[in-house]
């Protein structure tokens, strides 16, 4: 199947999940990602899978817990308020080391907020909105095709690290239609799951649990989980450098904003300014090193986000004072235009001179 299909990001993610072997979906409707559940509701039965509309996001995430523990590839999706309701469950899933994929199509918050695109759940996604030491792996697509590829990757990473993986998008990513191709992976990743709950037949019983009353044991587990995540940090950093080789100013942006920045960069280069983009694809693990190296060379980094300033903290951590970090944002569902980014970069270029 390498024919191009014209699909919205939400549907593309759903189809990619099915093609990656996802056989269970549990979710609760919320704009702007209802198309994922709606797609799954007719598509999963076709492949013998299970779609179930849960009574809430809280129930959804624990159904995911149950299905993941039973050994299947499973997904849920929601948008900001619904994801907040899942925080306890995500912490439990991470603690039980269960693989699953969670999609957050961010909308403007806090509270009920609005239904327009936003990137203000970055902290929640990358630092852990739930309690305890854990991290999801977080992938942020900026095109429908990338949404497909990252969704497929997400299932593999989830199995590989026995860890929840989040696809972090927004309403624009979910509703924009683009051509996509579904390429079956060259060598499909098959995880051996000896720990799953399937009935204790011809083997000692399996127990999926997160309570360890003895702190000596829990500390060991936590440290092991930390080590596992460091492994992921070593292997799974993904980013796209875009015209940065000769750049004087580098924009840092992900998802929707990154593609707008690409247009801005074309315009700026036509105007003679050497501007590039460093686009984190994995938000956790964050490409600290790539930013650190970039900071060695460039005078200024402009972080553009649809939040009051979240990823910018990670950029600053990476840059560690080596170059100036500027920040530009639109919030509340407003999307920055390339004009605004162009203007912002020009301002910085002037200051630098």
């Amino acid at each position, binding site marked *: 199947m390498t024919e191009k299909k*014209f699909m919205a990001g939400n549907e593309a993610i759903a189809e990619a999940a099915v093609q990656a072997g996802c056989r269970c979906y549990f979710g609760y409707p919320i704009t702007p990602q209802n198309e994922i559940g709606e797609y799954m509701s007719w598509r999963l039965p076709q492949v013998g899978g299970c779609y179930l509309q849960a009574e809430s996001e809280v129930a959804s995430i624990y159904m995911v817990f149950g299905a993941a523990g039973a050994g299947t590839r499973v997904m849920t999706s929601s948008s900001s308020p619904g994801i907040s309701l899942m925080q306890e469950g995500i912490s439990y899933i991470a603690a039980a080391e269960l693989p699953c994929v969670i999609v957050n199509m961010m909308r403007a918050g806090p509270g009920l907020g609005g239904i327009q695109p936003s990137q203000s759940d970055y902290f929640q996604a990358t630092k852990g909105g739930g309690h305890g030491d854990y991290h999801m792996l977080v992938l942020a697509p900026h095109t429908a095709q990338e949404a497909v590829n990252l969704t497929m990757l997400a299932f593999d990473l989830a199995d590989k690290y026995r860890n929840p993986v989040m696809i972090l998008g927004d309403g624009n990513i979910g509703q924009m*239609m683009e051509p996509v191709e579904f390429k079956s992976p060259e060598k499909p990743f098959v995880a051996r799951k000896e720990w799953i709950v399937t009935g204790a037949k011809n083997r000692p019983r399996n127990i999926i649990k997160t309570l360890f009353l003895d702190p000596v044991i829990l500390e060991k587990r936590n440290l092991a989980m930390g080590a596992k995540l460091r492994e992921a940090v070593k292997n799974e950093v993904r980013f796209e450098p875009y015209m940065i080789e000769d750049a004087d100013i580098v924009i840092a942006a992900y998802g929707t904003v990154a*593609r*707008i920045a690409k*247009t801005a960069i*074309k315009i700026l280069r036509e105007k003679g300014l050497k501007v590039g983009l460093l686009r984190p694809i994995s938000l956790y693990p964050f490409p600290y090193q790539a930013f650190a190296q970039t900071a060695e060379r460039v005078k200024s980094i402009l972080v553009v986000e649809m939040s009051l300033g979240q990823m910018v903290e990670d950029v600053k951590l990476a840059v560690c004072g080596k170059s100036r970090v500027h920040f530009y944002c639109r919030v509340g569902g407003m999307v920055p235009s390339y004009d605004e980014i162009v203007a912002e970069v020009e301002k910085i270029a002037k200051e630098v001179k």
Partner: protein
Amino acid sequence: MGKTSRKAFYEDVVMAGFGGQGLMFIGKLLAYSAMKEGRAVTWIPSYGPEMRGGTANCTVVVSDDEIGSPVTPHPRALIIMNNPSLEAFEPKLQSNGLLLSNSSFVTRPIARKDIKAIPIPANEIATEMGNEKAANMVMLGAYIACTNVVSKESIVEGLKELFGKKIDLLDTNIRALEEGMKSVRQKACT
């Protein structure tokens, strides 16, 4: 107002009107057809803050390059289906841009002088032709006639895939498309 010029083939268009005027559909159809012609395309919708009814618009970008922003503050073309949309988008059109307005609904005068404005009585044309609902296709016909972003054949192919069996729907829509193309040819566009 900034102006974006690019070397590779690049076109964008904003289509705006009431919900229910079929704009989302022709936007998708345009993008789909362009994709079939081998181009990079994006289609992105945008709804007003009202919860039901209200205005809606979509943006289609067609390019030979990777498409960055799927929306544009300065579209090269507009398909405008009602007065509020004219008000909202007219100022944003690039100079020398194309403004196709459905004069069956758009009654406000067009203010800009630095653009190419073509009013098309799409609903009348469609009604005459037997199906008022196809006014959107009239507008699309006019747009492709003016811009050559995609060929008529590609649109027809796209329609076929979408309507398949429903021959009458297909026929009306193709005829509306052709009428739309004619309507601007008469005005010596292209």
